[in-house]
């Protein structure tokens, strides 16, 4: 079982890295870029288990370590 966790900064939390990327893209001529928010993905390789249990376990991982819910949102995708 594989799971992918997407972590992004919450709306309203300053993302200076996203801003720097946005400036660079505009400098390269991509004038249609209005704003950039960056984040990270974490791929987990899990032992075989049913989807419900996997989802609950990854949810716990996000709460305890993978995301800081003061500043970050996360979403979980089970891949197979």
């Amino acid at each position, binding site marked *: 079982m594989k799971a992918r966790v997407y972590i992004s900064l919450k709306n309203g939390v300053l993302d*200076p890295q996203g801003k720097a990327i946005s400036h660079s893209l505009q400098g390269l001529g991509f004038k249609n870029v209005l704003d950039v928010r960056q984040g990270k993905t974490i791929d987990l390789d899990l032992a075989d288990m049913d989807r419900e249990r996997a989802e609950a376990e990854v949810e716990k991982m996000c709460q305890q370590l993978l995301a*800081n819910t*003061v500043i970050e949102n996360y979403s979980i995708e089970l891949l197979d």
Partner: protein
Amino acid sequence: MKAAVIVFPGSNCDRDLKVALTQSMGREPAMVWHGDSELPDTDLIAIPGGFSYGDYLRAGAMAANSPIMREVVRKAESGTPVVAICNGFQIATETGMLPGALLRNASQKFVCKDVDLLVISENERFVGGFQQSQVVRFPVAHHDGNFYADADTLDELEAEGQIAFKYVTPEGEITDEANPNGSLNNIAGIYNKAGNVLGLMPHPERLISEVLGGTDGKTFFDHLVNSIV
């Protein structure tokens, strides 16, 4: 009085803290490794600056889940004073001992310089060595010191006297220019609700002798030690 300094892989201000505490206490603090699960008998816990676990995942995130931190949180909840400096502050927010979070500096740059700080609170134990509204000078050295909390938390911190220090001009004015990292409300240090945990980005342990450029840090530690003894 006894103190304990927590040491993580990647801590780099642990020995500066040891020197500062030894100077103020007249005895050495215990240096406690992150993998230990028990703290020695101690009257003060100090969490040092550095880059614990290489700042992997988020600054302070891995250290916050190390075995010794469970014990530190437990002691803090029972009232033991904790001073958490720089990476220590990041770790303390990650454990939930302190509210908010420390984001990447707004400038995206590592900031390393002396800053002027307004003493905001009347927390006798931690800042009783200074006058209320005194401007003191400590160095900062960090890449992730941009204090963030949601609007409700921020209001509560202001209303409950939980803000310890703010970045200011040498004259004590709270301005954007005096803010080295984009912290909301120019916040440089905060307390928990109970007032026994202080987290701050600046490094008092780096300014404890005229040879180092100043003694505001020595005043801080001398008072902290005296107030605990």
